[in-house]
C-alpha cells in the first residue's frame, strides 16, 4: 500500500471517529436536555407530596391527642360519645384551622392537575357516569372544622380518580361534594380541608 493511500485511510478513520464522537455528544446533550426537566418535575412532585404527607401527619397527631380512633363497641352510645368528645377536643385544638392549611395553593394546583388529567383521560366518561349515578350531594356549603351533615349520603369517590391521588391513612377520605373535593375525617366526621370546584365542569 502506498504512503498516500495509508494517509488517506488514516484521515478517513479520523473523520469517522470525529463524527462518532460528535454524534455521541449530540445524543448525550439531547438526552440530558430531555431528562433534566422530567427529573425537575419529579423532584417538584416529590416535594409537594412530602409537604402534603407532613400536613396530614400533623393533623393525625392532633386527632390522636384529642382522643384518636375508638375501638369497636357493641353499644352505639359509646361510639357516638367518643366521636362527640374527640371532635369537640379537636375543634378546640384547631380553632384557627382554615381552608388551605392542608391544601396549600401549591398542593391545590397539584391536585387540580391530577383531577383534570383523570377526567380528561380514557376513563373520564365512565367516571362522570358513575358520579351521576351515585346520588350526587349538592347544596352543602363546606366549612373547615365543621361536621359533614349526618343525615346526608356520602357520594362514592370514583376508583380511577383515587388511583391518581396521593394515598391517605385509612380514616381519612377524599369526598366529592358537588364540584368540591373535601378531605373528610371519618373518625370525627369533620371536614379537615377542601378544594373548591376541584371537579372540572362537564
Amino acid at each position, binding site marked *: 500500500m502506498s504512503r498516500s493511500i495509508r494517509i488517506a485511510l488514516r484521515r478517513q478513520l479520523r473523520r469517522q471517529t470525529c463524527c462518532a464522537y460528535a454524534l455521541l455528544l449530540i445524543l448525550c446533550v439531547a438526552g440530558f436536555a430531555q431528562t433534566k426537566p422530567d427529573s425537575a418535575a419529579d423532584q417538584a412532585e416529590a416535594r409537594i407530596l412530602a409537604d402534603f404527607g407532613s400536613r396530614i401527619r400533623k393533623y393525625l397527631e392532633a386527632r390522636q391527642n384529642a382522643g384518636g380512633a375508638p375501638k369497636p363497641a357493641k353499644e352505639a352510645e359509646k361510639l357516638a360519645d367518643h366521636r362527640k368528645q374527640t371532635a369537640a377536643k379537636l375543634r378546640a385544638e384547631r380553632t384557627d384551622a382554615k381552608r388551605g392549611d392542608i391544601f396549600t395553593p401549591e398542593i391545590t394546583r397539584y391536585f387540580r392537575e391530577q383531577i383534570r388529567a383523570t377526567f380528561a383521560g380514557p376513563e373520564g366518561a*365512565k367516571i362522570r357516569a358513575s358520579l351521576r349515578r351515585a346520588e350526587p350531594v349538592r347544596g352543602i356549603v363546606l366549612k373547615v372544622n365543621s361536621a359533614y351533615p349526618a343525615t346526608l349520603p356520602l357520594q362514592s369517590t370514583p*376508583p380511577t380518580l383515587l388511583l391518581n391521588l396521593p394515598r391517605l391513612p385509612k380514616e381519612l377520605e377524599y369526598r366529592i361534594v358537588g364540584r368540591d373535593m373535601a378531605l373528610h375525617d371519618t373518625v370525627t366526621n369533620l371536614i379537615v380541608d377542601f378544594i373548591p370546584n376541584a371537579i372540572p365542569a362537564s
Partner: protein
Amino acid sequence: MRYLHHRDLPKTRPVARLRWLLCGVLFLVVAGFASYSRGPAGTRTIWNAVPFFGTTLQADAPPQANASGPELKLPLEEKSVRFAVIGDSGTGEREQYDVAKQIESYRQKVGFDFVIMLGDNIYGGHSPKDFADKFEQPYKPLLDAGVKFYASLGNHDDPGVERLYKPFNMGGERYYTFQKGDVGFFVLDSNYMDPAQLDWLENTLHNSKAKWKICYFHHPLYSDGKSHGPDLDLRAQVLPIFKRNGVNAVFSGHEHVYERLKPEEGIYYFILGNSAKLMTRDFSSTQNMVVGKDTERGFMIVEIAGDNLYFQTISRVGETIDSGTVARQAPAPTQSSR
C-alpha cells in the same frame, strides 16, 4: 238545564271556582291523614297518599299472613351454608319491620344463622336511637336467636361509626372477609374503592382456598334500574380482579328493586336494594335481566350445598318473587396479576 263543568267556571262565578279548589285541598288533606295513620314511623309526607307524588300505593297494603306458612324452595341439605340477604334496609319505617317479620318466620323454617347486609343499613341520622329504631328493634327476634349480621357500607351509611359497631361484625374495617364452610365472603366498600382496597381484594381473593367466592357491596356493577344504573368506573376496576380470581357470585344493593341478572363469564349477579326502600317502575330495560321486581319490597334466603347455590327471594307479604338454582362455574384458568 245546563250542567256545570269546571271548564265553565271562569265564565260563571268565582265562588264556584273557589269551591272546586277547596274540594281539591280537602282531598289532599284527608288523603294525607290517611297516609299518616297507616304507618308507625310518622315520617311519611302527605304526598305519599297521592299517586302522582307517592312511591307506591300498592306496596303500602298491609302484609297479609301467608295462610299456609312460609313457602320454601330450598332443599335444606345437610351441612349446607344458609344465609339471608337484605339491602337498603335501615329506614326504621313500617315496611322494614314487615320484611324483618318475614325474615324471622323463614329463619324458623330454614335455620340460617347469619344475614349479609348490602349497605344503607342506617338511613338518615346515626344516633344511638337510629341504631335502635333501624336495626336493633326490627331484627330483635333474629339477634335474640343468635343470628349474626355482616354489614357492607352504602352511601347512606356512616363509615366512622358503623364499621366499629360490633353487631355489624365488620371488625373495625371498611372491607373484610369471612368464611362459612366452603364459602368465602368478601365484603367491599364500594363507596371508596381506593388502591389499598383493590390490592387487598386481589391478594385476599387470590389466597382464598374457598370453593365458593362471593363478593358483596353496595353499588351494582350491572343494573337495569334507571334511578341509579350500573357503576361503570367501579366495574372497570374490580371486575378484572373478580375474573382473575374466580369469583362466583356478586350481591349488590343501591337500586331499590330486586333484579337477577344474566351471568357474565361465570359470575352470577343479584341486586337486592328493596328490603325497606322501594323504587316502583324503576326498570328502564331488561337488557341484563333474568327476573326483576320493582313493585314490592323483599329479602333473599340462600343455601349453598356442594356446587349448587339455591336461592329464594321473598316479598314483604311472604310471596316468592323468584327462586332457582345456579351451579358453580369453574373459573377460567387465568393468571393472577400478582
